[in-house]
């Protein structure tokens, strides 16, 4: 027990960064501890509010952490942010206060404040349990719960107790919390990015002497880690009781890079509040209110506290389950999947075998404990094992998590941490990575491992074991169309990859859309040289073959490998990425002439994943003489949206952007026009010639973004639509043109400028290989900069000479181009190896054109 000095509450000193002195109030709670106590609270004092936010800070911060939430509060919302007693600028009582006392304290304070009417509690860190304790006693007032990086329970395996125990070691606690400001400094150092000096000073201001810091140690000491701790029962009570708030809207905001409150705590809270909206701010940490713009998210969420009319999914079309085609061909002894190896056919499975294997695997997974709704990440290259696992998961209602290697190791780690799968099925190399990098999920190996390896990798089963276990077991009942089926990831070319969720009915609709678009029937067969499509064959019910190529490097597909794959199943369809096609063209001469005949049987070539140069499509015509080249337009969130053939590309000719064709049947596409600031604020329209954000509605659209409530909300306006983030327009013939990404719009004084049209025009110069158009300067007065890759680029980046500058400006026309820079190459995304990373180019140009060193991009 610390004998801390006592002193009354005071107002904060003037001049603390971002803190408006008129918010600060001193409040007395008469009778508390006998003679009453004085508090410091921040209160915007909105009269007759429709809602009050009661903001409760943690340890060792103070109400200052909520300043942004107050400054940007909507007109009718009162925000009250309290300083706990012995914390911030509230009274130093000289007592030690435990959780129960602190809840009593808070109740006394809100009574003194006359806090009636609807309340949303907002809490961070150990403010969480206190706010929830208050909520238990004010149920009728509770209109919402917002929690950030907090906990009500110690989940098994969390590291936090270790850290807390370390801090609580005799002697250490007082030293780092009270005698020195080490705990405060340490907490402030967790901010990402680093806090500015004035903000750090403001956090430290109320804790200037050891006498003012006693409660910091008391807070740490009050964390119950064992059942005999005085606060254990209270906290357990709060945790257990949380489920009774199921009807209160809840928002969980999380900074995952938190050494104390890791994702385990988020999962624990999410399980207790199953209806909660979740937004994980990737890259943010413990001091979330400093790291991320939580004010926007909280205030946006408040606008939607009233339940909205959720659009009922279009389930009219009674679609077949994803595995229906397998059951239909259960007695079919023709090949369903063929995996090609370096020396020809490597492995194959018939429809009958595949169906039986999926059934076995489904039962085996269920026996292992995989339940409906469990997430299973699949780190397995396209082929038979992947198909078996995916269809087995779907069959029992498990959700497949597909993080592809194109995200890079770091991107995959982030993606998997976010999806947080319960199981991870992988090839041994992937399991080793998962083990080393701490990727979540109980590990299942695709192949048998040596005993040592099995122990080291901590594997719970192998696929063959599961097959054996499932052999004679019944398969659990199948999921319904509304059950979650899959999580894919955006390419992450604009920020961290986002998890995109699909339900069964959406994937069924996607399958049906593809069948209809390309008139696919059971006489067809497919070469899938593009990851995602390797999974469609079994669903459509046609044979598919995976050619011999490196999964991580689509450019490794040779004409020979493609032709061998085509011949094996007498393929009529070829799906390949642009990079793969490029290499097919390059290696066409080395193809065995006897394979040419098989290539004549291909009727359709589909290439997607990135804009496909018409020249590549044309050149492939030499290799696949009877194939009509098509390129669909779409994105991770909805695919396909539109489709265009080579002939149609030629008809469309050049224009402002890339022509992606007309929307396919069943897909609605509309444009939300840009305003002067380059934001898509216009109503949805299909008016031609109007540039804006491409908005899409389709039955085969994603369900939402995983644990990214704000992202999901922003991308789903109006409700039921998907805002693609692409900017484009319709031409007079109803064709859609893509002009770039919303984030890459250059906002000039004369209005928004989109990049793709200019880039294409500049790339028509005979001595130019490619170009990127970016903006420099503040939004609204940005200048257009063209970064050119000349055919004969010098080693170092440079300003273009006057001649090239003149020719570029002449092509661009009326838009003023401030500078033309030359580089050897432009940065592109990992997954497609073709999308220009314009954000990175822009940051570089901004630096260089402001007098920075002309270094590499």
């Amino acid at each position, binding site marked *: 027990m610390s004998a801390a000095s006592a002193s009354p509450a005071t107002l904060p000193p003037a001049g603390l960064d971002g803190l408006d002195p008129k918010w600060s109030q001193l409040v007395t709670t008469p009778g508390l501890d006998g003679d009453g106590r004085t508090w410091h609270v921040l209160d915007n004092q909105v009269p007759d509010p429709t809602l009050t936010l009661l903001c409760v800070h943690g340890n060792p911060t103070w109400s200052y952490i909520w300043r942004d939430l107050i400054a940007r509060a909507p007109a009718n919302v009162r925000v009250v942010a309290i300083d706990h007693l012995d914390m911030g600028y509230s009274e130093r009582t000289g007592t030690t206060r435990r959780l129960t006392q602190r809840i009593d304290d808070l109740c006394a304070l809100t009574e003194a404040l006359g806090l009636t009417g609807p309340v949303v509690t907002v809490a961070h860190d150990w403010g969480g349990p206190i706010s929830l304790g208050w909520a238990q006693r004010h149920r009728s007032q509770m209109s919402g719960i917002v929690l950030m990086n907090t906990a009500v329970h110690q989940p098994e395996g969390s590291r936090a107790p270790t850290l807390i125990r370390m801090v609580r070691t005799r002697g250490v606690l007082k030293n780092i919390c009270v005698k020195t400001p080490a705990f405060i400094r340490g907490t402030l150092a967790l901010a990402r990015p680093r806090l500015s000096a004035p903000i750090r000073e403001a956090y430290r201001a109320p804790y200037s002497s050891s006498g003012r810091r006693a409660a910091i140690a008391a807070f740490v000491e009050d964390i119950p880690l064992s059942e005999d701790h005085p606060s254990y029962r209270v906290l357990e009570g709060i945790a257990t009781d949380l489920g009774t708030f199921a009807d209160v809207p809840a928002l969980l905001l999380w900074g995952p890079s938190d050494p104390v409150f890791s994702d385990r705590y988020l999962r624990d809270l999410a399980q207790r509040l199953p209806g909660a909206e979740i937004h994980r701010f990737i890259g943010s940490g413990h001091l979330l209110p400093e790291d991320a713009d939580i004010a926007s998210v909280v205030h946006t969420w408040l606008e939607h506290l009233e339940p909205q009319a959720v659009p009922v999914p279009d389930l009219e079309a009674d679609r077949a389950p994803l595995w229906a085609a397998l059951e239909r061909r259960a007695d079919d002894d023709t090949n369903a999947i063929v995996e090609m190896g370096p020396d020809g056919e490597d492995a194959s499975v018939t429809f009958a075998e595949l169906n039986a294997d999926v059934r076995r695997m489904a039962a085996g997974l269920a026996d292992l404990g995989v339940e409906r709704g469990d997430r299973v990440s699949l780190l397995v290259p396209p082929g038979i094992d992947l198909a078996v696992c995916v269809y087995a998961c779907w069959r029992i209602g498990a959700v497949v998590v597909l993080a592809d290697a194109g995200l890079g190791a770091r991107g995959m780690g982030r993606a998997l941490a976010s999806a947080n799968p319960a199981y991870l099925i992988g090839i041994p190399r992937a399991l080793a990575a998962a083990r080393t990098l701490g990727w979540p999920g109980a590990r299942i190996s695709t192949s048998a491992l040596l005993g040592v390896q099995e122990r080291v990798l901590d594997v719970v089963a192998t696929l063959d074991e599961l097959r054996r276990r499932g052999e004679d077991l019944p398969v659990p009942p199948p999921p319904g169309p509304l059950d979650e089926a899959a999580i894919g990831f955006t390419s992450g070319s604009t920020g961290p990859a986002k998890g995109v969720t699909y339900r069964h009915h959406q994937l069924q609709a996607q399958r049906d859309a593809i069948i209809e678009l390309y008139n696919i029937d059971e006489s067809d067969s497919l070469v899938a040289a593009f990851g995602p499509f390797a999974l469609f064959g079994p669903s459509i019910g046609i044979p598919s073959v995976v050619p011999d190529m490196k999964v991580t490097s689509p450019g490794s597909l040779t004409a020979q490998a493609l032709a061998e794959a085509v011949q094996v199943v007498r393929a009529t369809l070829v799906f390949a990425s642009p990079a793969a096609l490029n290499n097919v063209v390059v290696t066409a001469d080395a193809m065995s002439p006897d394979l040419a005949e098989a290539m004549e049987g291909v009727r359709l070539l589909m290439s997607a994943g990135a804009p496909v140069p018409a020249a590549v499509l044309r050149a492939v015509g030499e290799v696949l003489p009877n194939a009509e080249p098509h390129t669909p337009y779409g994105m991770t969130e909805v695919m396909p949206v539109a489709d265009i053939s080579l002939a149609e590309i030629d008809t469309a000719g050049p224009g402002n952007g890339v022509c992606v064709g007309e929307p396919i049947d069943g897909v609605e596409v509309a444009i939300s026009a840009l305003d002067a600031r380059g934001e898509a604020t216009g109503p949805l329209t299909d008016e031609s010639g109007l540039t804006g954000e491409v908005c899409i509605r389709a039955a085969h659209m994603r369900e939402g973004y995983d644990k990214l409530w704000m992202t999901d909300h922003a991308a789903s306006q109006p409700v039921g639509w998907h805002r693609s983030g692409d900017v484009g327009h319709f031409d007079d013939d109803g064709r859609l043109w893509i002009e770039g990404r919303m984030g890459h719009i250059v906002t000039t*004084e004369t209005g928004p400028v989109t990049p793709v049209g200019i880039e294409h025009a500049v790339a028509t110069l005979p001595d130019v290989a490619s170009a990127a158009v970016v903006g420099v300067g*503040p939004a*609204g*007065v940005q*200048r257009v900069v063209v970064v050119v890759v000349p055919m004969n680029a010098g080693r170092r980046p*440079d300003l273009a000479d*006057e001649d090239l500058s003149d020719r570029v400006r002449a092509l661009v026309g009326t838009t003023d181009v401030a500078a033309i820079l030359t580089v050897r190459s432009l940065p592109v995304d990992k997954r497609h190896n073709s999308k220009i990373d314009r954000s990175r180019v822009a940051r570089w140009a901004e630096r260089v054109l402001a007098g920075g060193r002309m270094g590499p991009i």
Partner: protein
Amino acid sequence: MKVLVTGATSLIGRTLAVRLRDRGDQVTTFQRRPSGLGVVEHLGDVADSAAVAAAVVGVDAVVHVAGLAAVSGPWADFERTNVGGTRNVINAAKQAGVGRFVHVSSPSVAHGGRSLVGVPAGPADPDRARSHYARSKAYGELVALSANSSDLSVVAIRPHLIWGPGDTQLVERIVERARARKLAIIGSGASLIDTIYIDNAADALVAALDRAPSLGGRAFVVTNGQPRPVREVLGRIVMAAGLAPPRFKVPYVVARVGGSAVERIWERRGVEEDPPMTRFLAEQLGTAHWFDQRETRRALQWEPVVSLSEGFDRLRAWFAEQDPE
């Protein structure tokens, strides 16, 4: 309108006087040497308050262009002309009951040496000014704007790097150096800088004069709204004179440190001619400075009519006339 233009021997003063005269204003000028413009002239120094007072009598408006624009020299010279001279002209205008006063200032009055990227006109700040010239212009602008009242509308216009045919400040110095093969690029030469073609600058001053009653007390940066890498600006000017664009580069740090040293030596020795480099010049050429023109254009209801490429064409034609070879 009866308008007095001070400093009518400078390119901008002369161009403005002609423009006002041609549109029917009664123009008189005040400067040390005859301008040859064929308008009523008062000869004198702005530091001479009596001469200034005499020139201001009876006019409706003053456009105060006169000033000392040099890259080096003793502070006293700058103070005398740019601060004292401005005080004399503004006081005389107040005394004489003049209604409008357009003060020609410089964007350097708000330039603390860092890059300025798409910013609006900041307040003049003598304490942060990076050269005697900039500091004296900052004080001068503060003197002028503080005289704004309901009787006298004072507007400050800060043209950014005026150039055009006949310009002795920027164009002539650059071309001379290029001829002497002494023109170097500071750093990569990629810093974006704003400039303004002479005709556009004159138009902006006319616009400020016409709208002065609604703009009193405000300062506006005026530019062509077409920032370019400094190397491109130098290159286009030099090419207009028929010379090869500069290729010689000096690292920014070297230029800045070297410039400071040269500045001190020049000051100590009292050398008359311009030093090859000053810290101020290094900063001006090595950092970006371009501006948000939206408020300027809205308030002045003015747009530049001569684009940079048109301006460079005219400059080339002018050089060709000068030197018919």
